[in-house]
Each structure stands twice: as C-alpha cells, then as structure tokens.
C-alpha cells in the first residue's frame, strides 16, 4: 500500500496546474452557460492538450496515445474536473466512447474514429435514454432495421449530452431484434450526425444550455461498417461503457476544489467582527465535507488501483460513484448554507461570491444522482454483483 503519488506524478500535476492557469480564460465557468465563446474554447483547449500528448495520454501509441499510467490519467482527470472540465464534451471521447471502440471496434473503425479523438477535433454525443427508457435502459425502442447496405433508424433519444454543440457523431443504442428478450436484441451504431433525417432539439435545464437534448431519427441510413461489435450484443458494450464512465469522472476533485474555495472564503469573510472560519458550526461543516471528500477520493483510488492491474472495476466503480455524487451534492448544499443570501446570486451577477462556483456546484449536481444510472440503480448493481443478493425489482 502506498498513499502518495510519485515525485514524477506530482511534477506532472504541477505542470498541468500551470498549463490550466495559462490556458483558461478568466471568463471560463464550465460548459452550461449562455456564452458563445464556450465551444470554440473547448476545441482550442483540447487541441492544445493534444499537441502536448495529454489528451489521450493513456491510450496505446497506435491510437495516438503514450501508454501513460492510469495514475497519470487520474491526475489529469482530477485537474480537469477541478477546473470545471475545460475539455467540454470531449471528455466523453476519452472516458468511454474511445475505449469502447478500442475494445469492440474493427481495425477499420479504430483507424477511422480514434485519430480525430486523439487530435481533439471531434465531438460525440450519446443516444441512450428514451422517453420510455430511463432506468430501464434495456427497454429502448429506437429501431434499426437491417437493409441491404446497412440499417435504417427510426425513433427518439433524450437527455443526449452536447448534441447541439453541434456533435459530429452519436454513440447510439438501438433495437435490432424486437423479437429477442430485451437485453439480447440491442446493438450500438456509430452515427454521423450530419446524416439526413436527424433533428436535434435542445432542452434547457436548470443547469443551463447544451447539456441536454432530444434527438429524432427519421429514416436515417447508417452504413453497415458503422455497427460497433456484433449485432444484438450491444447491451454488453453499453454496460462496459457505463462502467468506464462511472470510474472515469473525478467528481470528488471538483468537490475538493469547491471545499478549498469555501475554506478561503470563510477565512477572508468577516461576520460580527470575526472571520467566519472561527464559527464552530462553519468549521465543523467544512471539516465534515473534507472527511467525506477523503472517503470518496480513496474509493476512487481503489477502483483505479484495480485498473492499474488490468481489471475492470464494476462494483467498485459503483461504490465510488455513490460517494462521489452524494459528496458533490452535499458540497453544494453546505456551500450555499455558508454563503447565506449571497448564495442566491448566479454567476451572471458580478457580486456573486466565488464567481458563482457554489451556485454552479449546487445546481449542476441536482441530477448527479440520476445521470449514468440513478443512485438506486447503482445500489441494485452493488446488491446483485457485489453482495450476491437476489435480483431487485
């Protein structure tokens, strides 16, 4: 057991921090803001990362990577998430779309799809949920009918991230065999978003624009070489992808950053002639956040330790996610409580304390225990696969 990073890893983190200080403009507040500069900024940023070999550093060299250790990759994720994910939509390419193509794709697909990801020039969205298929994801109805030269897709997806970026490609879960049991008739298609018949409708959310969209497919033709993996074996790909995704977001790192910001805030803010940091209730609450941050960070590190040994953590990733998501929500709530009425100011108001970081922490995390499998679905996974309890209904 070793609970320290190596000096080389620490140097890499410092290098990243300096890079972020240089590259991130003062106005950067993350993705979900009404600001036309956001998407061009994320594209520029990803290309800068790519030039330094950092964008896909953990990938094998033949796909544009450097075989970097999973720990360096974790440090990169932590610094990115701590700075409100300046890679924007492209973090998904690295987290699970690329790895799924590496694992399930043909040689041709790897040559076609991975290099643009490594260069930071392509945006993907995902088509998983449907109006009638949320937690019960395997009941998706969007239909891909096999025709001579491929598939014809009809249906509707919802809650698709960044589809209005606009996204170039969609990682799409479809039903290819309606007569098979529901988990066995699914496939994954890689769909060019410029194909005729695709319509995107953005859904404004409490967090702001861009996060959520509906995508409509009306007789959309998808060539056969865009089927990922075997036909009707899509469920396996999607569950692997979701496990990558759960282990792949360093949510605790953002929570940790907001705890740091709040710590500075209570040291500098005075109330009744005393710094807020002297208030016992404030001290205890911030310490409690810090303790929960430690727990979440360690459970993520456990999952990463397994990855370092070539294993795919599934139960461990779900347990880490339980802690990550609840920590993120708690930091938002406690942060708001510490700011008091100042917490009501959005980041659009110049008077907002901490540039609205706490407001964003609160509002963006309302759906954190819902996305990528609800808290309850995570618990079902742990109950069945981790504890061997009977299937939950």
């Amino acid at each position: 057991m070793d609970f320290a990073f190596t000096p080389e890893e620490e140097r890499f983190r410092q290098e990243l921090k300096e890079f972020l200080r240089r590259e991130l403009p003062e106005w950067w507040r993350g993705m979900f803001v009404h600001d036309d500069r956001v998407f061009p900024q994320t594209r520029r940023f990803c290309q800068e990362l790519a030039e330094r070999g950092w964008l896909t550093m953990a990938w094998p060299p033949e796909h544009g990577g450097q075989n970097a250790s999973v720990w360096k990759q974790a440090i990169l994720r932590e610094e990115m998430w701590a700075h409100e994910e300046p890679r924007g939509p492209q973090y998904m390419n690295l987290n699970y779309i690329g790895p799924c193509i590496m694992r399930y794709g043909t040689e041709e697909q790897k040559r076609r799809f991975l290099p643009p990801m490594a260069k930071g020039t392509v945006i993907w969205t995902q088509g998983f949920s449907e109006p009638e298929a949320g937690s019960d994801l395997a009941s998706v109805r969007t239909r891909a009918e096999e025709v001579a030269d491929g598939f014809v897709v009809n249906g509707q997806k919802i809650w698709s991230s960044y589809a209005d970026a606009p996204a170039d490609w969609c990682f799409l879960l479809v039903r290819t065999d309606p007569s098979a049991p529901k988990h066995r008739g699914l496939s994954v298609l890689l769909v060019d978003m410029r194909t005729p018949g695709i319509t995107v409708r953005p859904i404004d959310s409490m967090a702001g624009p861009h996060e959520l969209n509906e995508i409509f497919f009306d007789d959309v033709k998808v060539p056969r070489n865009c089927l990922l993996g075997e036909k009707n074996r899509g469920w396996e790909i999607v569950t692997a992808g979701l496990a990558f995704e759960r282990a792949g977001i360093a949510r605790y790192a953002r929570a940790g950053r907001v705890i740091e910001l709040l710590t500075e805030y209570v040291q500098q803010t005075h109330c009744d002639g005393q710094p807020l940091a002297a208030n016992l209730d404030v001290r205890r609450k911030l310490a409690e956040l810090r303790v929960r941050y430690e727990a979440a960070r360690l459970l993520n590190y456990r999952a990463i330790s397994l990855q370092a040994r070539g294993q795919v953590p599934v139960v461990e990733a779900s347990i880490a996610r339980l802690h990550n998501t609840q920590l993120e929500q708690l930091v938002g709530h406690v942060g708001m409580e510490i700011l008091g009425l100042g917490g009501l100011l959005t980041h659009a108001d110049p008077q907002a304390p901490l540039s609205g970081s706490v407001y964003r922490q609160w509002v963006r995390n309302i759906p954190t225990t819902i996305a990528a499998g609800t808290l309850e679905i995570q618990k079902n996974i742990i109950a069945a696969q981790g504890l061997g309890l009977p299937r939950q209904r």
Partner: protein
Amino acid sequence: MDLHLSPEQTLLVESARSFLSRVWSLERTRAIEASPSGFDRHLWLQMAELGWLGIALPQGFGGSEQTFLEATLLLEEMGRALLPSPFVPCVVVAAPLVQALGSAEQQRRWLPLIAAGRAIATLALVEPGWRDEWRRPEVRALREGTRLRLRGRKCFVPYAESADLTIVAVTIEGEGPSVLAIDREIPGCSYSRLDTFGGEPQFDMEFDVAVPATTLLGKPGEAGAEIDNACQRAMVASLAFMVGASERVLEMTVEYAKTRSQFGRPIGSFQAVAHRCVDMRSDIDALRYLVYQAAWNIASGKVDALEVAAAKAYGNEALRRIYMNAHQVHGAIGFSMEYDLQLFTRRAKAVELQWGSTSFHLERVAARMGLE
C-alpha cells in the same frame, strides 16, 4: 499510489485469518467476556510465537520489525474473529510509548517481555469527568526527594488487573505532563472493575503511592506529544478492529437477507432491505480505506495528519449507520442475546466512545484545513 496490499501483507492477513478461524469462535468470545481476566492467556502466548505482540518492535527486543500498518491489518483480522485481548493497550499503546520515551534500561526490561507475551502493559490515562479527548492529567505527582508521590484516580483503564506494567499519565507539579511506568510489584494501587458493556475489562484505579523517580518514562513534562501519538494509534487500531468486525457483520446480514423469507420471497429481494446492505458495504469500504490511509500516515511518522483524524470523524458516524442497518435487516432476532449480532454492536459503540468523538476529530480536521 496503490491501494493493494503487498504480497507480504496479503500473506500476513491470510495466515492470521486461518489461524484465528482455527482457534477462535464467537462461543469463545462469549465465554471470555464473562471471565475475570477478559482474555485468553494461552492464546496470547501463541500470538507472541507468531510474532504479533512485537509486530512493530525491533528484532533486538524480539520484535518482527514491521510497521503500524501491519499491526492494523492484524487488528482487522482480530476484529473479524471478535477476539477480545489487550492487543491495543499493550502492543499498540504501551510498547511504543516505552520505545519512544523509555531509557535503554526501561526498554530492555519491558519490550522483550511484551513481545514474548510474558508481560501485559496498559495505559492509565482517562480521569473522572473526561468525555473523550485526552487532556492535561489532573493526577499529580509531587517530588519527595528521589521519589514521586502519586495521588489520584484514573478510570477506564483496560486490563488493569492483568497488567504487569501500567503507564500512568500524570502532571508533575511545576513540570507538566509526564508518564510513569508503574510495576505491578509496587503496592499502593487499588483496582475496581467497572460494569461496562463494551466487551473488554475496564477498571478504576486509585493511587496513593510513592514511587522511585526512576519510574519516569522520558523527561518530566515532555510526554504530551507522545501521549497524543499513543491516542491516535489506539484510535486507528480500534477502528481497524471494527472494520474486520463489520465485514463479518455484513456477511451475517447478507446471509440473513438471502435466507429469511417473508411474503413468499427472500427479504433481500426487496430494495428497501437490499439497499441497507449496500449502504453497509459502502460505509465499510470507505472506513477501511480511511483506516489504511491513517495507518499509513502513522507508519510514515505523520501521526498528526488530517487524514488520521478523518478516519475517526467518519468512523464514528459510519459505525452507527452500519450497526443500525444490520439490526434493521435482522429484525427482532438481532436484538436477542442468543444471536451473535449483539456481540458486535456493543463493541462498535465502545469504539465510538473511545479516543475522540466526531466533533473532537472534526475540530482536528478543521484546524489542519487551516480554519483558524
């Protein structure tokens, strides 16, 4: 960064688990809890032969030269077996105090005996009216020529009646916190066993005795930092014991949820029940790695670190949740004395009440975050 046990650590854990499962059972725990000494001397000597009692001591004293981290791994296995013993007061608290503060002669006298299982040592620290945290002792030692006159009362001293060596925290008039190594042979200490529910014998001790000044461990007035270190070690060690104990309780609870049937199906197929088991899993995992991290910090000499206090701040609350979830899943049977769950629940509450409350440790965390 690597959260896996090393091959040597894995071997240590596996051999400890297989040894304890061979020699110990929960029936033995029940019997030993009711016995006067509160531990099994024969087994204690076997633990010495395995090298456990000198786990972190140098070879010169008969030790195994491992670190505090290996001691916590052993404690996790003792917790899984729910083995009551003076391991924490003797091996984790007292021996390192002798090692850190004692003269060469004191070390030579006590450490080989402790490692060999032939001397039990304990710490008399707590005084009437203290809640949880350690503070400046009010038991005074007055200099009388070459002797120290010790007067006062200590309480919650574990295994005091069995102890060959009692380390007593005192304030020497005009000199500050100090510790004395009091031999069983010295008369003038009286014991009375307290009626506690925690599963380990604890005693009140009355002192009215003049002891030679040579009983001082280290320089007078300079023991404060080492006493604090000893408390942090004891705290992490007790939590490690509860990590192992809780893992066993989770196994019992999941087994119960799989086999107990109501409304025509196992209760574990109801989400409300299953999710309580998952919450236990999630709390135990978090606590385990917080404890490992704390132990690693202590082993690296960073006893004062934020990460050490974080373990107990989380642990206290987690233990409450874990054991209330276990009871809720078990229903009425878990409340009966004949069922084994109560053995663990009582111990969990005792660990929560020792070595610092949640607010005490949150305050330590806050101070280390720079919240001054």
